[in-house]
């Protein structure tokens, strides 16, 4: 009953490799020669990406350092206030 399906399923046994046309490589060469020079030099893209990353990291470091210094100033002010109030307490 299933013979016809088995025959179809096994029809690829002993298959030989299909051969590409003889002139296929010359067409590939033509395509390569027609490529814009930008596509051949991919290192330019990586340089741009690296520059963007460096810029982003530097700006983040600058932002974080300025933020930390401002909070330090605030905490120093707070401690001065505490100290003053403490002195006031003891003064009373």
């Amino acid at each position, binding site marked *: 009953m299933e013979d*016809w*399906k088995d*025959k179809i399923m096994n029809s*690829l*046994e002993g298959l030989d490799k*299909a051969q590409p046309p003889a002139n296929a*490589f010359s067409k590939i060469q033509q395509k390569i020669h027609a490529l814009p020079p930008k596509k051949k030099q*991919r290192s330019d893209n990586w340089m741009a990406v690296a520059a963007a990353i460096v810029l982003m990291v530097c700006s983040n470091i600058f932002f974080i350092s300025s933020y930390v210094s401002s909070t330090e100033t605030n905490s120093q002010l707070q401690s001065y206030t505490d100290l003053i109030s403490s002195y006031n307490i003891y003064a009373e």
Partner: protein
Amino acid sequence: MIDEKKWLEEIAGGGEEALELLYQHYSNRVYNTIISFTKSAEDAEEVLQDVFVTVFQTAAGFRFDSSVSTWIYRIAVNKSLDFLRKKNSRKRLGIFSSIYIRDSAEVKHDIADFAHPGVKMENAEESKLLFRVIDELSENQRTAFILTQVEGLPQQEVADIMNVSRKSVESLLQRAKANLRVALEKYYPGRGNSNKTTS
């Protein structure tokens, strides 16, 4: 002994002679895979060119994490599937417009009668039927089936190409074969009976 690493280094530096050597070494295998996906010699040639242009463009970025063979097969499979997706979307657009033109709900697909050039003469008719129903499979099942059954690659190499485990390839292959049988039954419901009566 061939030195693929040296070839790729030369290709990365723009060496076309090395590309030709690589092409001579892999073109038959790559073309054989591609034609099984596209089912057309013209389309397969177009995709083959695209594969080797991509190899030329991306050789500098190849890190030898996998074998060169696996890398080239992976490019070939991806290019073939991309090509088919584009072709099918164009076909869908055509079908969509035909709905308005013909005012008919039934749309007939033009299924190409593809005969693989490497198939044995006595299996020619059966293989045509098989290639007709291969389109019924999902992309992964189709890839696993073509690479193992048409290209004859070991399951582990297919797993490397598809970036899945060997167990997954085994499972995909089993499901592909089961689905092909269902599709054959669907497309040719009377075939078993007619063979029985005539023989």
